[in-house]
């Protein structure tokens, strides 16, 4: 019905001032939603990359049964000779690093203090990539030439009262149930994104961890990709490689392991929904007001249209097209306004943010206007404009012709 669209468009621009005000309110609402969404998106990305690159990697590979037996019988689900698997996976383009780890927990002592520790034994060669997102606050990073050196989290250092160069003794038990102790020297102190993690975390050469548990196996193989976006594409290829081995493996993606990330995403997504709901209601009132006034003002015209043969449905369509048009114009300008705002924030070097709860550092925030963010702002705007056009359109179609045509 191109001509109905044409008439609706003409009618939209008929009362330029009123339309401008309505469109303006839609633009403001759209831009607010898009920028808030873009901010959340930016925060998600930072948190995601941080979680992946300091702790989890993109994928973790375990021996089959790991998740059932890791507490009751961890030894039976360790991986022997991980190197042959790692080499095959490392050949894939897009894979940055493949490494392995053996973690254990124990009681750490330095001087008088004794604290609970979670010790990660890492392969020093393969682990270089992971340190990117850790911030060294004191000392130096792990060095393959120093098999006795370890890193500890900033909060753990405070708990232990240890300094760089001090020895830390960790008490744990071997797989045979024998109490065992290993020592490492604090080479450096690091800060990751999470304060909680920093308060228990120590990183030592894997040989040291293996000595503590009296094993030569590893617990997990960790795969880090160059780009998080490649994961869906690389995952099946890695699964394929694993299927080629006689022994069986299990794979977990980073997002299946990152409970904290999921919780943050859920929280912020909830906040965004509430915010979008409020914006939607504001837009609805604004559009409903405009449309109701338009119907009211054009009563006589509606009567005339009906007299020359317009059906009720024609009038409903006409007013819905008007609502649709206002929504589309508002959204279009809203996209432009959001881009301008994002560019402005970019130009001033971001918005300084305090550290999020449980995090160690503040950051510069930007608006990451992804397609998904713009799409959700668009969807909210269009649904709001259409919903608030429905009643006025229906009312217009129900106006009694003879009353509409009466000279006022």
């Amino acid at each position, binding site marked *: 019905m191109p001509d109905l669209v044409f*008439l609706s468009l*003409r*009618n939209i621009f008929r009362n330029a001032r009123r339309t401008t005000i309505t469109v303006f309110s839609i633009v403001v609402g759209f831009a607010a939603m898009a920028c808030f969404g873009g901010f959340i998106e930016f925060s998600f990305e930072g948190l995601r990359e941080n979680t992946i690159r300091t702790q989890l990697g993109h994928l973790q590979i375990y021996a089959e049964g790991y998740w059932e037996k890791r507490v009751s019988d961890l030894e039976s689900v360790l991986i022997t000779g991980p190197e042959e698997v790692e080499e095959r996976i490392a050949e894939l383009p897009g894979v940055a690093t493949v490494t392995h780890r053996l973690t254990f927990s124990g009681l750490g002592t330095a001087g008088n203090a004794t604290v609970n520790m979670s010790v990660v034994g890492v392969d020093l060669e393969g682990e270089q990539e992971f340190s990117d997102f850790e911030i060294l606050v004191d000392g130096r990073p792990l060095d393959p030439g120093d098999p006795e050196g370890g890193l500890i989290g900033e909060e753990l250092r405070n708990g232990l009262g240890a300094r760089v160069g001090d020895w830390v003794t960790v008490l744990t038990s071997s797989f045979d149930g024998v109490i065992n102790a290993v020592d490492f020297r604090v080479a450096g102190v690091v800060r990751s994104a999470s304060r909680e993690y920093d308060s228990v975390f120590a990183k030592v050469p894997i040989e040291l961890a293996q000595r503590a548990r009296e094993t030569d196996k590893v617990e997990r193989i960790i795969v880090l990709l160059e780009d998080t976006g490649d994961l869906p594409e690389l995952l099946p290829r890695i699964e394929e490689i694993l299927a080629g081995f006689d022994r069986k493996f299990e794979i977990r993606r980073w997002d299946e392991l990152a409970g904290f990330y999921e919780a943050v995403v859920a929280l912020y997504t909830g906040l965004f929904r509430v915010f979008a709901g409020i914006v939607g209601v504001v837009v609805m009132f604004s559009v409903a007001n405009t449309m109701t006034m338009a119907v009211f003002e054009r009563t006589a*015209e509606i009567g*005339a249209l*009906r*007299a*020359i043969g317009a*059906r009720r449905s024609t009038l409903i369509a006409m007013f819905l097209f008007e609502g649709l048009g206002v929504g589309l114009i508002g959204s279009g300008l809203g996209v432009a306004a959001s881009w301008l705002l994002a560019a402005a924030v970019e130009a001033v070097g971001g918005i300084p943010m305090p550290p999020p709860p449980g995090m160690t550092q503040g950051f510069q925030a930007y608006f990451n206007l992804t397609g998904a963010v713009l799409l959700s702002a668009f969807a909210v705007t269009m649904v709001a404009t259409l919903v608030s056009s429905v009643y006025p359109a229906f009312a217009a179609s129900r106006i009694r012709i003879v009353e509409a045509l009466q000279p006022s």
Partner: protein
Amino acid sequence: MDIISLRAVSKSYPSADTRLQVLREVDLDVEEGEFAVVAGPSGSGKSTLLNLMGALDHPDSGAVRIDGVDLAGRSDRALANLRNEKLGFVFQSFHLIPVLTAVENVAWPLFLKGVERRRRVARSRELLTRVGLAEHMHRTPGRLSGGQRQRVAIARALACEPKILLADEPTGNLDRKTALEIMDLFASLNRDGRVTFVFSTHDPTVVSYAGRRLSLAEGKVDDEPLGVTRHEDSAHA
């Protein structure tokens, strides 16, 4: 055959305490090609009668037939199609669509009828030429005089080649000279085709154009043939 036929048609409106009975069991037939005027004092029910003939309103009781079709119980869609295809309306206050140009206004009923775009435009140009507005096709109503607007409205009413043209005080908002020009136009259109005209007016000069006068009083129609009073255009020039 009677193109319009009313049988025992009554119409009332709610008023302060009782109902205001505007039409009382009116029987009326209008033949194809007639040029009839509905006359009567203000409030006598002229508009009410025309609205019933135009399928714009329903009677309280009685039957209205347009071109053999009984309007009772028809759906909105059926009535809209009937108005679109068989009836043309001209109003005292023109009721053009202000955001559309003259040619677009005239094309609108054709759009509603589903006529293809190019033919709509050709037809509305032709009609505007016929009503003497070839020069002003692309003006919006706001830039036309009252008489010009009424010509656009007449062209619009004729767009779908209706069998009946209903005009409620078509000259009510026009000055005397323009009013007579418009009536001359109606008269010539009535002669040209076989369009049936029913219009209402207060104005005795306008009444004198008609071939038949339907005088409304007390809810009844007093039917009065006016003989050979069809005016020549020159008579009022």
